């Protein structure tokens, strides 16, 4: 096909890095051979179909049949397959390089906001503005579904601001508290 020939001139192989649960996988697509891919350098054939819900996916990869469900989320994608959960980030080579450059440049966020992971009610606040907190330390207690859940600090840092009060109802995603991460240089 003429079109295939044309694309081949300025488009060749696209490389993507797929990170799953922290482990990277390299997938290459050769646009001239549409049913083949290279997975970590190994050539494979694929056939992917989607169901009534497009998130319902059936993939046959080198005759291995796999059924899974995949959805977009804030970080990338979440897949559920054979009773397991997979957190996935899809990046092309350029994005990945850009991100690693930014990282190397010391581009760090200066504040970290703690958000409610579900709607509920604030029962107690365990810290005060200005408090230094360690990673894993309890920050506040939110009650939902008749259970009290302690929200823990994801990092070492200082409490900058508390945005809620005890007995206040909170929505999912609502900002609860702002932390200032400790600069990594201080860590011994």
């Amino acid at each position, binding site marked *: 096909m003429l079109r295939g020939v044309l694309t081949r001139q300025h488009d060749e192989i696209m490389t993507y890095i797929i990170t799953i649960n922290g482990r990277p996988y390299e997938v290459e697509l050769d646009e001239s051979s549409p049913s083949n891919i290279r997975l970590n350098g190994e050539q494979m054939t694929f056939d992917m179909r989607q169901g009534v819900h497009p*998130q319902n996916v059936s993939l046959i*990869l080198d005759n291995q049949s796999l059924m899974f469900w995949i959805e977009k989320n804030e970080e990338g994608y979440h897949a559920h397959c054979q009773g397991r959960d997979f957190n996935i980030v899809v990046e092309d080579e350029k994005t990945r390089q850009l991100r690693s450059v930014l990282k190397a440049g010391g581009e760090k966020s200066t504040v970290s906001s703690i958000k409610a992971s*579900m709607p509920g009610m604030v029962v107690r606040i365990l810290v005060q503005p200005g408090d230094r907190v360690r990673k894993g330390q309890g920050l506040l207690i939110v009650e939902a579904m008749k259970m009290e859940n302690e929200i823990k600090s994801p990092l070492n840092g200082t409490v900058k601001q508390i945005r809620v009060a005890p007995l206040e109802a909170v929505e999912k995603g609502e900002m609860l508290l702002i932390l200032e991460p400790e600069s990594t240089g201080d860590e011994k």
Partner: protein
Amino acid sequence: MSTHLKKVLVANRAEIAVRVIRALRELGITSVAVYSDVDRVALHTRLADEAYYIGPPPAIDSYLRIDRILDVARKAKVDAIHPGYGFLAENPEFARQVENAGLIFIGPPADAIEAMGSKTRARQMMKEAGVRVIPGAMEGITDDKTALDMAKQIGYPVLVKAAMGGGGKGMRVVSDPKDLIHSMEAARRESKSAFGDATVYLEKYLENPRHIEFQILADHHGNVIHLNERECSIQRRHQKVIEEAPSVIVTPEIRREMGEAAKQAAQACGYRNAGTVEFLMDKHRNYYFLEMNTRLQVEHPVTEMTTGIDLVKEQIAIAEGHPLRFKQREIPLRGHAIECRIYAEDVLAGFLPSTGRITYLNPPDGPGIREDTGINEGGEITIHYDPMISKLIVWGSDRHEAIERMIRALREYHLTGVKTTIPFCLAVLENEKFRKGEFDTHFVDQEFHSTYLEETGKQLEPAIAVGALLYHLRMTQRGSLKPPPETGVQISPWKMQGRRASMDRLST
């Protein structure tokens, strides 16, 4: 002297309401559901013959409103009320008011509920009936000296417990005498705020107990039988998550003995209908009465699967006044059954409830599978109620087959929109110690590591990586690739996706 129930109100929601409605339908009894605002489209509301609105989402304004439920009972002219489990099921006041309204309460007498509701009173009753209880106090302890003497006599570690408690609240383990008084005060405060009663007592702390419980049925003619045991040692936060029947450590001799003890316990409190006598068993297989649950249990299906007896139908027959249909020796024990409770919880975030809409639901089926659920696709998990989505139950000819079948079923279970305990259940069933039957109630704390969940799916990751990339490309930069224009011909979505896929490849 028996009546025939024609219409029954189910004073509950979700899977247990659905379970009861199904039994009623099979018996030809008209079912009446009650629902709160958020449950208008819940399965139990839609499945019942009649449905009545009872109030706003918080249970305290709807499913716990005795007055509103009785109003519905009068309006709908029902003969009886089934309370399910939770909510009003173990509220003696409710049972009493139902009876005062001239209706049948499908459960035990209010007095039995009341007696078993107090841990200290239950202990006294059991001891008098000759059922072994955990060594310790038989009544609430108020002064320090009695507490210290008692603890010294039974030996540390001891367990401080709230007399009216449950669910692990108002409970403290004390290993050092100098912590005792302080712990008792803390337990009193906790109990006061959670249960409105500050009575606490002491008992010996059993180090590595297993939770073994017996299902019993008692009729209005003095007959009591047991339907074997269930083991419920796999717990997190003092809540059962995986149950099975029979227990791997219960021999026929122990079963006979414990079954007799369970029947004595039921007789001692004048029990009628279905109930469960819970025991703790230490590593020397000494067993002690823990408490009696005066209702149908969440885990009742494992008993149904191994005996072939429908417990809800037996509850109704008992409530109608029929004598038990079975003698003790006629109760079978066939094969092995396991139940996994599927909760909407984020296991990696410490079993935090996960709310949201179920975007896709495709439960497993095939041989030996039963799924009791109250939710379907599009249904919502809210903050107002328990986050249990469903109970997945399997039956196998032996424990090994049941375990392998459960693993197969969990892997086929597709549910999205909320995080679930499915990966956690798989981790338990794949655990060597669980498979060998070597576990106790500390199993989850000691054996379960969240890293397992990240490592165990490793061999699937390369294929998932390819699938995720293809999905990403199809749904984003080539999102312009809309389905082909309407042709007026019905084609299967799979076929259409296939066409799209081939167009996708060609269009590059």
